[in-house]
């Protein structure tokens, strides 16, 4: 499945998007964050403080307890600063 990263999350992870295959028991946003954080030192740094990481499932904001499917577009990014 594809995961997108924006702003400093992308800088820390090192890529704007990647294809990942989380195990079947990873079903919620919070579980996906915990799993991604183990992938590398860079991922660990990017997801060090999950409280300041925002997630969107199919371009809608999603909280940590929301579940996703393997075909969803998942994105992680910092709190927004537009306007």
């Amino acid at each position, binding site marked *: 499945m594809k995961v*997108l990263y924006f*702003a400093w999350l992308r800088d820390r992870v090192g890529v704007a998007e990647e294809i990942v295959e989380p195990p079947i028991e990873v079903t919620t946003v919070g579980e996906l964050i915990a799993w991604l954080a183990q992938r590398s030192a860079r991922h660990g740094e990017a997801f060090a403080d999950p409280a300041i990481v925002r997630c969107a499932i199919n371009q809608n904001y999603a909280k940590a307890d929301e579940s996703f499917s393997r075909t969803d577009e998942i994105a992680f990014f910092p709190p*927004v600063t*537009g306007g």
Partner: protein
Amino acid sequence: MIKVQREDFDVGAELAALSAGRGEVGAVASFIGLVRDVAGPGELSAMTLEHYPGMTEKQLGELEAEALARWPLDRVLIIHRHGRLLPGDRIVLCAATSSHREAAFEACAFLMDWLKTKAPFWKLEEVGGQSSWVAAKDTDEAAAAKWTKNE
């Protein structure tokens, strides 16, 4: 109407088009956000706005619909730029038109408050050759939250 674009926009033309031929519209409230000069004396500063294409349009579209549902408005306009901008450059234009000035003012302030906390844009600030991501402000969260409490 929602526009997400790299190019600058013509404020006068956009606002005139918004009310043209709309005989009931007596009030046009608008807000322009500009890049502030955050550099010290003799330094150059710039700002790059990154966004999430697709999600931006979706979120701004929902914001427009929400404003139209909450207030007796005729139309709503949100134009937001992305890319590299310099101090004084326009970033965003929000506008709401109505026959009532209170509705136009409130809706316009609402658009900006929600946009600040929901539209997926991120500012990368350059000052004196150093780049850093702008941190989100608690005051923006508080400003957006007040529109929820009122329901």
